[in-house]
């Protein structure tokens, strides 16, 4: 079945350092979505990437979708304590409503 691998599982950074999480799908995706889950909270949608090679930015966050539409990354520049949480990628194949989530990357930021 479809699998979405995400690394690293954990990342500890000092405030101000950069952070990147990577996502890789076993199959070509129609789109990939990113979600953030704060400790004790629920997943909240961040962005959706649809086009091959797409790059989108949200302030200090940069999202990329690979040319083959099988991998993606989320990069945070100059992390802040408010960035703490678990970041999930979730892939969707064409014709399916199912989102397959990666296992998430838990980010902790030391002030």
């Amino acid at each position: 079945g479809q699998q979405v691998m995400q690394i690293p599982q954990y990342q500890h950074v000092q405030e101000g350092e950069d952070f990147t999480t990577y996502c890789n799908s076993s199959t070509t995706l129609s789109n990939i979505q990113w979600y953030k889950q704060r400790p004790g909270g629920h997943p909240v949608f961040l962005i959706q990437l649809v086009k091959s090679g797409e790059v989108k930015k949200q302030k200090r966050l940069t999202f990329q979708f690979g040319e083959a539409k099988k991998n993606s990354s989320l990069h945070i520049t100059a992390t802040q304590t408010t960035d703490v949480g678990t970041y999930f990628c979730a892939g969707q194949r064409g014709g399916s409503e199912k989102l397959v989530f990666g296992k998430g990357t838990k980010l902790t930021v030391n002030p």
Partner: protein
Amino acid sequence: DTAVSQTPKYLVTQMGNDKSIKCEQNLGHDTMYWYKQDSKKFLKIMFSYNNKELIINETVPNRFSPKSPDKAHLNLHINSLELGDSAVYFCASSQPGLAVYNEQFFGPGTRLTVL
């Protein structure tokens, strides 16, 4: 107004009991989902309904039975609870087919603890 709501927020029960979790969304979405998040934070889809019709049914034990009385509600009933059922259960909704985004909106979760 809460977009996706779940009740109860916490549920502590004994092994072997039967329990239900309720979910309601006021977003007018056609599709609703149930996810299970285990202690390692792994989010796995269990079921999905589109306009009251079951469209996704993952390999979930048949002790779990979803019910959608209308497209704004998706409830989850669990029979004969087992220790391994302890997890956070999230309900979500989306409106597939949108030209731009088909993001999923998650409820606050129900933390189920089976003793």
